[in-house]
């Protein structure tokens, strides 16, 4: 966003790209856990992009004769109750899960930032109105609200995304509101106005980008929650439609097989889910450091 305010030809693009990379490398080196999480993220992105092409079995192909087989050389993660290969399903599910979490977070990020930024900047009635609205959303136990929305709209992937986005909006809106509010009277805001920026420009190009670092932490947390949320919805039967592979629904359905000894059904998707949430959570701090210019030298 701040890019538009950049005067043309300030620094050579290659040079600044190199600098950014060097900065990212530094942040990663400084914190090994973050580095690990970025590595895992790359892995997930790889699975999402190439997984469907690489997996050994068709994730939808049933084989009643080979149902509920424990992990073996031919089925690394075993097979499920209709004989589908769990490994293939887990890998193929990556794409959908990433789509769900990223779009849900993107949606709440955009809507929340927009509402929060305007309320934080304008103050007064806009602010009061937004705050009451957010309070109202927050007054619902969030998961139950998501359930209600999915139940009302039907359990399609899109609706799961909407529901997840709606319950996350308050977090973004609140965060942005505070961040914008403390910068509303800041010197650089006033300076931007003096430089001839309209209020909209000041808000969009000067104040808002400064709220990004704390937002990044929220984003990473929410990416994880979004997947967990989908899993929870699956557990009560409101998840994505079968036979689409999705971690949440696989864990939710597999959970019922734990006691009967078919642990692999829930364990592997659960492990992947956990790794993904884990990755997102740990990435947050790294992302914040990367988007924070103060960390640059």
């Amino acid at each position, binding site marked *: 966003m701040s890019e538009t305010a950049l005067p043309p030809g300030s620094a050579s693009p290659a040079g600044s790209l190199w600098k950014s990379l060097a900065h990212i490398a530094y942040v990663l080196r400084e914190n090994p856990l973050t580095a690990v999480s970025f590595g895992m993220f790359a892995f997930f992105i790889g699975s999402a992009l190439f997984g469907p092409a690489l997996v050994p079995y068709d994730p939808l192909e*049933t084989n009643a004769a080979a*149902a509920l087989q424990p992990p073996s050389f031919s089925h690394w993660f075993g097979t499920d109750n209709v004989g589908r290969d769990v490994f293939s399903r887990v890998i193929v599910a990556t794409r959908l899960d990433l789509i769900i979490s990223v779009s849900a977070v993107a949606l709440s990020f955009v809507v929340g930032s927009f509402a929060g930024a305007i309320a934080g900047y304008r103050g007064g009635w806009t602010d009061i109105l937004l705050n009451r609205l957010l309070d109202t959303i927050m007054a619902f136990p969030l998961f139950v609200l998501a359930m209600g929305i999915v*139940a009302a709209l039907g359990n399609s992937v899109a609706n799961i995304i909407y529901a997840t986005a709606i319950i996350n909006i308050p977090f973004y809106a609140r965060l942005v509101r505070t961040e914008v509010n403390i910068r509303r009277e800041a010197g650089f805001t006033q300076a931007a106005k003096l430089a001839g920026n309209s209020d909209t420009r000041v808000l969009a190009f000067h104040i808002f980008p400064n709220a990004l670092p704390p937002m990044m932490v929220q984003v990473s947390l929410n990416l994880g929650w979004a997947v967990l949320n989908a899993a929870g919805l699956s557990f009560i*039967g409101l998840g994505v*439609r079968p*036979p689409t592979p999705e971690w949440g629904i696989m864990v939710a359905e597999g959970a019922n097989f734990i006691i*009967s000894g078919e642990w692999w059904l829930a364990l592997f998707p659960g492990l992947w889910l956990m790794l993904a949430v884990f990755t997102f959570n740990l990435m947050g701090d790294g992302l914040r450091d990367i988007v924070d210019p103060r960390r640059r030298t």
Partner: protein
Amino acid sequence: ASDTLVAVTGQTINSLDLHRTGTNRASYQVAINCYDRLITFGTKTLPDGSLSFDYSKLEPELAESWSVSDDGLTITFKLKPNAIFWDGSKVTAEDVKWSFDRAVSVGGFPSTQMKAGGLVRPDQFTAVDDETFVIALDRPSKLSLPDLAVPVPFIINSKVAKAQASAEDPWATEYLHTTPAGSGAYKVARWDPGQQLVYERFDGWTSGPLPKVRRIILREVPSPATRRALIERGDVHVSFDIPDKDAAELSEKVKVHSTPIANTIHVVGLNYDFEPFQDANVRKAVAYAIPYKEIFETAAYGRGAPLWGETEEIAGTEWPRKSPYVHDMEKAKELLAASAYPDGFEVPLSISTDLASWMEPTALLIQESLGKLGIKTEIEKIPGANWRTAVLVEKRLPLHLENFGGWLDTPDYYFFWAYLEGNLFNSSNYRNEEIEALTAETLHMAQDDPEYAPKIRRMFEIAMEDIPRIPLYQPALNVAINGADGYEFWFHRQLDIRTLTGAES
């Protein structure tokens, strides 16, 4: 202690009064265990040694004896003279009349069920004296007596109930909802909705042999995994209605009863409102494309009874019966090629979230198999609350899974509900003039009538030829028992605790 048994179930009991609007299926067991009916079905021993109700035998419960007039229009009951309610008062014909009046008047399901036996209006019931009760029928029907043995026409202590009734609530539904007033073998000692129901034996019970167990605690545990852990570890004695998979696996560790449910079939419904399914070749192609055996193995884990691959001529009137269809993709392809849709079509395949445990694997297998024919399906999971509306009331699901079980175990009764146009369980919008006529003729006809069997066989033929509902298998009701005995299967699929005994002998 063997004078207390603990049972778990996944369902929640939401009322102690079956007649109330909104009472769910799981609550019917209160009507069975806490109330008596005039009569009940007999008991038989199945080939596997377990006990089951016997539709062919009617036995007294509150009634000592009964007689049917020659024209079949009047049934006269003599009540047991020593039968008492829990409060010690005598069970009179007046109570029976009040209870029957209630069942036909409250509307909703109880009234519908009563209607099946030809019991429609209060003026059909007369209490002649304390111990004589007479039912006047509009026309003779073989269903009338059996319909008195289903859970609905239970006898309430009308003195207690009337004392609690009011102008807005003449049938005391408020009161009986939480406080049963009956003469049954067990009283409700405690009811924590959503948690547990504690039964306590009524020692003055006269309608049958006094139960052995004094106290039975019924706990509600929603998670099937938890239920399985509990029964396996022996912390509970009875786990009612367990999933087929658990039944298959647990049978080595604990006693598991799996009884195919009478008059119940899991079917694939092909809706005639959906144009391609009006084509007989398409319907048959679908029927041949279904991998029956795999479904029976993966969805039912082999529990229940297969209902496909009949090769012989239709001889008897047993129902459910096997269909002539088998999994034969070649034939399916041929049939589809011969139809108006040789290249297939797209159709949603609808299942219910509440019944996902069998519907989902079944749907997956069907989806895959139909895909090979060129029929593209998308599985649509419909939330439980919406399911009934969509499948039965609006009948708008083109391709769906469905299961209907008739309480009254006759084929005509099944056909009445499932194959007649407009009737609730005919989710396929199927209409066949001949079946309409045949059902009307046979529904009330005695089963030993010489005309009965040929007509029924004709109905079977048409249903199998038209195949609007493709039978998959007859499901089983699975009950795991650990440290108890005496379980008996009932058509109403409820736990009858009256026959349970303590530790296995």
